[in-house]
């Protein structure tokens, strides 16, 4: 089943690729239609997912025996939301790419291949396989930015590629090292996550490996000060690229920290909490402050990503139930709201071919529907209660307050700053009198565009009002992560930090 989920986009890409370019207009609709298949499958997986710890729907096929590598896939509460999010966003981003007129076919092919790579990375349970997907994703994304991007696209695409490749290269060395430690301890070679979690490492080695993994993921997230590739990539990428980059690719970083760093190097993770939390909080504040002064709407959203992803990392390294659950659900939330904001910016750019805030003003009057959606997503991103952002940020802050009170307090300023930069941007773009001639004739959202935004908006409300739909499925898996850390180190979660505390207390009484 999971194999099919990865192969479906590949097959779809091949189908699109074999249709001759002369039939230019058919590739995009066909790509959208075909990308519904993985979405349906992902929806089914979500439906049948049992809220239990451990992996479900596992697939395990030997790839090359002597090296101990295998095609090993599985889904749990941490990867499930990301898989669904990925499958959902691909048709939406394709639908938002009607402005791409040159080489449409290749574009659709690359987006579908990107989808296969992203799904594979979230599903892989073998480190070799994970690395393959993690690195392979760079290729389609590189082409998407480099061919269909803005003016400085080539610079941005190469910077993106080299930056991320450098991080993952050191991770590769650490993966080999980990497999070596496994083989010296157990006598056979394996790259399976479950096997490598059994390895006992001496403290120094574990820290080096943790650092190599963390560097790879920190570049991907990106954490301050490794974020410099992100604004370039985001600004230059076409809308579809920005959306997938923000909503899914960056999540590979936060997902990787949670899935691999915490699981493989529990001791070093516990030791690294102060460092990671500091970096996360600096990122939250720095991203927000820089976002305030951005003159470019897309860059503003890009820096807001740096800030928001800081919350996810803070939640991860809070090492409490709330923190971890908040991190996972915030992965989804950020994907939905930032994805939607990038879509909105892209729609504006399609009309006006500028993203500079100063070029707009009073759009509320001209494009009321557009302004409505923008405000809605802004509120979701700020974390207005009742919308999804609130759930995630609240959980992260509560969770990290239990273990890292000082960091949580500083981080909460990030929420305030988010309100400032987003609402101020809204004010400058949408309120007032439309005084620029060019803006008066702007069309409001078309039915197609509403159709693209509506699913995201609905999910924003649903997750905001009924977070338990997701949290019930996430919870057991994040608890398992904490259990693993507590059983392998002398770390104990601070008192109100575990969900179990509440349940056990209730059971005892």
């Amino acid at each position: 089943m999971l194999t099919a989920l990865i192969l479906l986009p590949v097959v779809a890409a091949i189908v699109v690729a074999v249709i001759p370019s002369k039939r230019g207009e058919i590739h995009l609709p066909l790509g959208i239609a075909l990308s519904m298949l993985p979405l349906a499958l992902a929806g089914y997986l979500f439906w049948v997912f049992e809220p239990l710890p451990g992996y479900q729907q596992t697939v395990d096929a030997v790839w090359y025996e002597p090296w101990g590598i295998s095609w090993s896939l599985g889904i749990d509460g941490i990867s499930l939301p990301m898989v669904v999010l990925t499958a959902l966003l691909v048709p939406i981003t394709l639908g938002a790419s009607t402005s791409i007129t040159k080489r449409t076919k290749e574009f659709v092919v690359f987006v579908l291949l990107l989808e296969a790579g992203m799904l594979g990375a979230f599903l892989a349970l073998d480190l070799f396989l994970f690395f393959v997907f993690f690195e392979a994703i760079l290729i389609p994304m590189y082409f998407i930015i480099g061919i269909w991007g803005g003016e400085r696209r080539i610079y941005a695409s190469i910077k993106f590629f080299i930056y991320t490749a450098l991080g993952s290269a050191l991770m590769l060395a650490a993966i080999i090292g980990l497999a070596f430690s496994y083989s010296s301890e157990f006598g056979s070679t394996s790259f399976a996550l479950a096997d490598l979690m059994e390895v006992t490492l001496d403290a120094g080695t574990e820290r080096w490996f943790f650092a190599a993994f963390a560097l790879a993921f920190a570049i991907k997230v990106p954490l301050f000060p490794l974020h410099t590739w992100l604004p370039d990539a985001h600004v230059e990428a076409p809308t579809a690229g920005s959306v997938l980059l923000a909503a899914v690719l960056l999540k590979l970083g936060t997902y990787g920290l949670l899935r691999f760093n915490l699981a493989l190097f529990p001791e070093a993770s516990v030791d690294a909490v102060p460092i990671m939390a500091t970096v996360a909080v600096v990122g939250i504040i720095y991203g927000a402050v820089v976002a305030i002064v951005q003159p470019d709407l897309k860059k503003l959203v890009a820096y807001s990503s740096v800030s928001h992803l800081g919350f996810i990392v803070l939640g991860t390294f809070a090492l409490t139930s709330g923190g971890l659950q908040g991190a996972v659900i915030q992965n989804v939330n950020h994907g939905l709201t930032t994805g939607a904001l990038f879509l909105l910016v892209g729609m504006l750019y399609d009309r006006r071919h500028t993203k500079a805030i100063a070029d707009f003003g009073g759009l509320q009057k001209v494009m009321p529907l557009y302004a409505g959606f923008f405000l809605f997503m802004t509120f979701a991103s700020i974390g207005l209660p009742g919308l999804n952002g609130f759930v995630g940020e609240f959980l992260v802050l509560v969770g990290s307050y239990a273990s890292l009170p000082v960091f949580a307090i500083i981080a909460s300023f990030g929420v305030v700053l988010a309100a400032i930069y987003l609402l101020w941007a809204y004010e400058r773009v949408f309120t007032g009198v439309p005084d620029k001639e060019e803006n008066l004739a702007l069309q409001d959202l078309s039915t197609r565009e509403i159709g693209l935004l509506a699913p995201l908006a609905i999910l924003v409300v649903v997750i905001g009002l009924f977070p338990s739909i997701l949290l019930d499925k996430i919870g057991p898996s994040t608890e398992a992560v904490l259990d693993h850390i507590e059983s392998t180190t002398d770390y104990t979660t601070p008192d109100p930090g575990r969900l179990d505390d509440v349940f056990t207390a209730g059971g005892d009484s």
Partner: protein
Amino acid sequence: METPDVAWLAIAPDLALALAAAVVLLVEVQWKPATRALGWITAGGLFVATGLAVVQWFIAADAVAARSFSELSAFSGMILMDGYAIFGRFALLAVTALGVASGWQFFKDLGRRGAEGLALVLLATTGFSIMVSSNNLIMLFLGLEVGSIALYVLAGLTREDKKADEAAIKYFLMGSFASAIFVYGVALIYAGTRQLTILGIGDFLGSFIVGSPGVILVGIGLVVVGLGFKVSAAPFHTWAPDVYQGAPAGIVGYLAGVAKVAGFAALARILLTAVDDFDWSFLPVVAALAVLSMLLGSVMALVQSDVRRMLAYSGVAHAGFILTGVAGFSVDGILFYLAVYSVQLVGAFAVVAAVSGSSGSTSDIGLYRGLSRRSPVLAGSLTVLLLGMAGLPLTSGFVAKFGVFADAWFNGYQWLVVVAVVASVIAFAFYLRIIVIMYMEDDEAAPVAVSTTVRWVLGIAVLATLLWGILPASLLNIVADALPL
């Protein structure tokens, strides 16, 4: 009179190649047929040689598993028919077939001299084939020289082209210098061990306390230097960029591919079976050469504006990666890497030849501007091959790099692996540069025509790159049997 025990099978593929070379020349003298006919003879020779190598592979399978010296050696232990030799031969034959096919236009354009070109190719492959299968250092040297001299001539086959002449002379001078160093090294090893066979040296060093280690040490060092020239490992790489750039485009892929396969096969055999028991391990020296090659190759490739020079420096970097495998004692890793890389190299040069014209001597990167529009086949193939050389996952290049890196780590060279992964990232930059030019910049220049043979070569090279990248077991299982005695 006692007839010597001649195991003809051990050299049957080489005989077939040499015979084909002779037939090509004789037919040319007698009938002066169209080059196409000579091409078919060449193809026939390669086909028969490959068939015989396959026969060797299956006949030797049991003996290989039993590692029986008596069954696998021929001509009083001069020639070995172990899996290593046969696999090396497979790689050489594949490179030759792909190389001739991709440079077919070049041989046709040579007119009456085409026969000489084809015969030289067949002779070069014969020499290198003997080189990878010989157990005796003198025999190995003879094979090396037969192959190298044929290559020097090939590089200068277009006599009218000044640049090719220069390249050929440079190649000849540097190459013969390297051969001399090599043979001096062999002499010193003989002086120190009284042995000329690789296995004999291994036994000697493994079982006796060596009286004059200094002589052997210098000998091994000189052998490494000599072969280092052939495989263009830094700092012995200086000839490569000039030769790759100056020699006719149609032949460079072959020239570079066979030299690397044969050179590394011989180097690895000597270092890993002859002198591996020596008191002074040579692996630190190999590791140092690897670091120098990887970093120098990658960095120098960044600043080239000619695609052929870029590929030459990338070849230096690849020599470094393969040396990482030598330091990791990774025989299967090296063989896999050689097979994978040589196929990619020949494929990449097939594109270069198509873009610059068969005997054209400029491959300025500007020629590739907008190639994706002008010739999607060439651009697409070159992209896959370059990504393969860069070692991106899902291509064979990744598996190859992973193999040698993992073995190097397991053999205690952790620091070398870290350097190697960083060097691979530097290398990404120049591979990407070519892809950028092809895909992200537009140019209105004329489309580039692609002949059917070149299409076939590219198809095979791309397919191999992807197949061995996605299902590496298809080649790794074969390589696992191809260990030296």
